[in-house]
């Protein structure tokens, strides 16, 4: 009974972790950018979605859509205003660009968080579940919304898989992650590929933010922690590896859930962090990392 409960609860949260981390790792894989404003973007999607649905009374679905759009919009702003300016800057030596992008997105994330705290306060908000009610799965009372979240996460991840493996743009994207120089020699405009990956990222982060808001709730104060958890999952899975991130998301999600149920809810994030430190010692390239 408890095992089943852990299996069900862990699955929903892990799927959400996976969705949030996939976009994060994709950007790194394709353009070498670690976007530390990730949590901020998720939070904005959640808060804007909530405000549209609840504050302005447009309902859950429209709210969710507007939230995702807000996530997408902010991701693009992040790219054009923060990341690209730093990448194109002549004042920054090329070998230091990554550090500057890291710092730039970190500060940008803090600005987003403070701005959201000013606009929406730091009280957590929760969006109305997309579907209400509970389903009894072999005696485990599971909110229907939790099942929907897991399904939606996998639908989005599946669509992403199709996009990357079955479309020309996706294949170019994949190629960019392997050999950007080769790709530009073939006449592909790298900046368009980067733009595509930021669009995909924006949608993924937006969907993850909105779903999190309907599941556990989100506050502006969560931004840092959301970035940290995506970052740990991605490092654990292997920077840039999408399948590695998915495996790591389930590993972390279940480790947290098992800890919360069997040891203490308070200790929830600890074992996953210990695992991360161990991974950095023993296997710095991560579970499925390439380098």
């Amino acid at each position, binding site marked *: 009974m408890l095992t089943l409960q852990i299996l069900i*609860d862990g699955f929903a949260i892990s799927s959400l972790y996976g969705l949030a981390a996939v976009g994060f790792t994709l950007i790194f894989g394709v353009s070498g950018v670690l976007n530390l404003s990730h949590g901020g973007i998720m939070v904005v999607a959640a808060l804007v979605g909530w405000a549209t649905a609840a504050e302005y009374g447009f309902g859950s679905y429209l709210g969710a859509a507007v939230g995702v759009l807000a996530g997408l919009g902010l991701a693009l702003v992040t790219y054009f205003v923060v990341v690209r300016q730093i990448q194109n800057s002549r004042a920054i030596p090329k070998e230091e660009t990554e550090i500057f992008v890291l710092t730039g997105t970190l500060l940008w994330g803090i600005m987003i968080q403070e701005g959201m705290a*000013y606009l929406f306060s730091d009280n*957590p*908000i*929760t969006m109305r579940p997309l579907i209400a009610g509970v389903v009894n799965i072999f005696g485990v009372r599971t909110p229907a919304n939790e099942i929907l979240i897991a399904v939606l996460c996998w639908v989005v991840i599946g669509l992403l898989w199709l996009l990357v493996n079955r479309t020309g743009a996706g294949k170019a994207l994949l190629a960019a992650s392997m050999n950007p120089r080769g790709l530009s020699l073939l006449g592909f405009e790298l900046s368009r590929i980067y733009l595509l990956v930021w669009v995909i990222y924006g949608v993924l982060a937006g969907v993850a933010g909105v779903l999190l808001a309907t599941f*556990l709730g989100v506050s502006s104060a*969560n931004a840092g922690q959301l970035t940290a958890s995506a970052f740990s999952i991605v490092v654990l899975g292997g920077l840039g590896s999408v399948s590695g991130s998915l495996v790591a998301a389930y590993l972390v999600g279940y480790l947290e859930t098992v800890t919360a149920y069997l040891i203490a809810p308070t200790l*929830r994030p600890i074992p996953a962090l210990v695992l991360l430190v161990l991974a950095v010692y023993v296997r710095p390239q991560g579970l499925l990392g390439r380098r």
Partner: protein
Amino acid sequence: MKFTPPAVALPFAAAFALAAYAPPAAAQEPIKIGVIGEQSAIAGASLTKAAEMAADDINAHGGVNGRKIQVITYDDHSSATDAVRAFQRAVNQDKVVAVIGSYISEVALAIEPWSARLHMPFITPGAASNDISKHVHDDYDHFKYTFHGWLNSAFIAQSICDYSKDILVGPFGMKTAVVMSEDAAWTTPLDARYLECLPTAGLKVLDHIRFNPDTTDFTPIYNQIEAKHPDVIITGISHVGVQPTVQWHDQQVPIPLAGQSSQATTSTFWKDTNGATEGVITATAASPGVALTDSTVPFTDAYTKRYGDSPAYCGYSSYDMVHIIAEAIQRAGGSTDPDKLVTALEQTDHVGTVGREQFYGRNDQFTHGLKYGPGLVTGVAIQWQNGKQMTVWPADKANGKVTFPSFVKLPKQASAQ
């Protein structure tokens, strides 16, 4: 023709001129009160807004001995460091005569030693830790500048035990409870008193859970609680609120939530939780539309009219504390000398928005704490019903009857109350 005043009138004129000249300089100088609260939190914003309202009310009635009250607000982001900095700035730079601040015990406890060092009267209108008044009791000469303007944790727990007996044990035949509190300074004494007084009230405590305020997923906690089959969950939550409430509702945890849920005392909580708070019971200072004293309803109405929401629990006490400081200055003959002000504050007997407010004396256990009891301040119990906060306790103030959402399983249906 040259006008010469009669010689006899000169001394009078001089005296009059002096009288008219010297005091106005002092009269025009406003009495400054510092108010510290986190602006992005509902409770913190309510605290400063209510203080500003109190100042406006006092000024509209002529101020204190002709001097106006000026409230200077500071945002501390609920950080102890920021709050101490704000406190120092209020004292050294802005020259306030007293400070009202914070609803977070950790923050109030950080300000308390500074109130002692800088000899600056300090009242917290919302923090609850028993340690605030214990420090005053243990080292009176040093800490006497601090006052506790809201019920401390022990009294909050007592109030909850009192209402649990009247509205849960009696009518619904509840016999067992699990205590679920966030791990914070204010809940340590709260839980200690819960464990003492709940059994006396008729609720056997089956388990006692303290969780990290950073918790976002409450499923494992509810799971653990459900396994014990209690009749009710008695909460002690303030830093968290929306998430445990929404998850309780979404997961249809079949056990009622009662106790202290500070965020549920705010009027926006219904919207914040999308109505998931339906059926939640919490202790609070006062509730909309229920006249604890003659000033409760006028204050609530005026506040709601001015700011759109009804005040949080610490809004009521913050409003009262500004009045209490003003009266103390009046009692001290207009003096704002800290020691005279402390003596005057100790003589407080003010009928405010939440009841008759007095402070415990030097020899009482909770020196400078707000007195608890019938005829003084007891707080009320409210339950969220269809978007409204209905007062369900004490019986003579109640405007609603306790009822629970359909997913909650009760030992028995309510007998006639």
